[in-house]
């Protein structure tokens, strides 16, 4: 099985503060990996290192086979990133956003044109193509930004709370898109505060105070903690947290 992420004893320190403490895990190709933890558990720091945005203090990791110390440029080409906070330029139209993100990932103009039509078709956004993104409902925006994040066919996509504030129907449509992409071999690394969404992941890791305290399939975790649902698993683990950022 090809491993898209491998991390071995990866740590990040800020002065005395150990934000991420020797985390070790791996993610297989085509897997949907849920990265959970309370606010301040160190998720963001870990994710930044994996994206090549921040150099680890110690430990090793590879993303799509590239070393996160030396090959950050290659890593950036093989990953996609979508966050709830920033995803699209609101003052550009749908079409302009697609063209822009296609452009920065080095797609050729004919490629971008092809992809644009393909995307607009599959999302049913043909009529809105020339409207500003700010005028789109949040659900559509999230779906569009996911599509844009994987426009350049990356091996791996990082989704940082992608469904925050979205209505339950759109949230499910969004997860359908994730499933479809994963079925085609895309690896998905996702954080969420919705515990039902944790169930949709193939595997989950739970971070507490900078460490990965538990990892496994949702079923295995529930069994391990003797909990009826993921909410309880999370509660049991995060209750023990000492750190409140």
């Amino acid at each position, binding site marked *: 099985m090809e491993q898209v992420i491998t991390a071995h004893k990866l740590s990040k320190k800020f002065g005395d503060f150990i934000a991420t403490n020797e985390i070790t895990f791996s993610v297989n190709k085509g897997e949907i990996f849920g990265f959970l*933890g*309370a*606010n*301040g558990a160190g998720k963001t720091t870990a994710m930044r290192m994996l994206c090549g945005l921040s150099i680890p203090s110690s430990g090793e990791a590879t993303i799509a086979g590239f070393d996160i110390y030396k090959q950050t440029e290659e890593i950036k080409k093989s990953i996609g990133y979508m966050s709830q906070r920033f995803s699209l330029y609101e003052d550009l139209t749908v079409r302009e956003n697609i063209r822009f993100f296609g452009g920065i990932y080095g797609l050729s103009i004919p490629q971008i044109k092809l992809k644009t039509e393909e995307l607009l078709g599959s999302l049913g956004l043909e009529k809105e193509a020339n409207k500003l993104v700010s005028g789109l*409902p*949040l*659900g559509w925006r999230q779906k569009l930004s996911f599509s844009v994040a994987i426009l350049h066919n990356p091996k791996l996509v990082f989704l940082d*709370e992608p469904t*925050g*504030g*979205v*209505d*339950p*129907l*759109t949230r*499910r449509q969004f*997860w*359908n898109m994730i*499933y479809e992409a994963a*079925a085609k071999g895309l690896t998905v690394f996702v954080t969420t*505060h*919705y*515990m*039902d969404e944790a*169930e*949709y992941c193939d595997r989950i890791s739970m971070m507490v105070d900078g460490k990965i305290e538990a990892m496994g399939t*949702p*079923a295995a975790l*529930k069994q391990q903690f003797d909990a009826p*649902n*993921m*909410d309880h698993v*999370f*509660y049991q683990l*995060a*209750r023990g*947290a000492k750190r*409140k*950022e």
Partner: protein
Amino acid sequence: MKAVEVNALRKVYGKEKTLAVDEVSFEVNEGEIFGLIGPDGAGKTSIFRMLTTLLLPDGGNAKVCGLDVVKEYKKIRTMVGYMPGKFSLYPDLTVEENLHFFATVFGTSVQENYHLIEAIYVQLAPFKDRRAGKLSGGMKQKLALCCALIHQPKVLFLDEPTTGVDPVSRKEFWEMLKKLKQEGISILVSTPYMDEAAMCDRIGLIQGGKLLSVDLPSQLIQKFPHNVFAVKADNMYQLIQSLQANALVKDVYAFGEYAHLIPNNSALTTSDLLHEMDKLNLQNSSASPTQATIEDCFIQLLH
């Protein structure tokens, strides 16, 4: 007297006359926790701003503590506590300074109403000299709640207080709200998280500026017109895809560990369903009747 009365409230934005709030009517009883449940962009914030006298309605009217939100805004401003959706404290002031500042602005002192915030503030006390900008999400939210409570408001408006906050902090937050309710404070709260609906006394489901339904959470579930089955198989994606195409199925969607299935015919039994699923070539498939949740109600209302 009702804590909040909203009558055919409307709000229109911009040149394109986008209808953000469309003829919304509801009431919040005294000493009640009323939840406005709906996704971002449903119009929750606009309703909150009209009720806290920050925006003028474009139609309809509303009263808070029996006072009109347009004409008697000055009186209302002394009686309500408001916690906007975005973290709205001074990031460069410490926890303590923020609290004292807001106490004074509201013409009171921290000592005077300390009993109200004590339970929350003890958790913040170890960080009282820390700048508010350096607090974690859950702590910020607690501080914001303290600041909104410090003048002992009659009605508390909390706009998405738990958004972006982890499940543990969210649970703690709701426990605090229950205590405040016992103090006699009426609370109007909004949230995009369906699972928080059960914590409210009554809820209003809102989408696209329209109030879809107002009821007790338990009533809403009881009135749910369909049977619900929890179905499961090793490959959930395949299960949902193939069942969606099935004629017996009205709707099927992921629901945590399971998928929820709504049949087209209410006479459909579990064994009928299992029989149907056997044809689909799924491994370890199972099905059993289950209780509908608020989320199920919302999804069906959206259709």
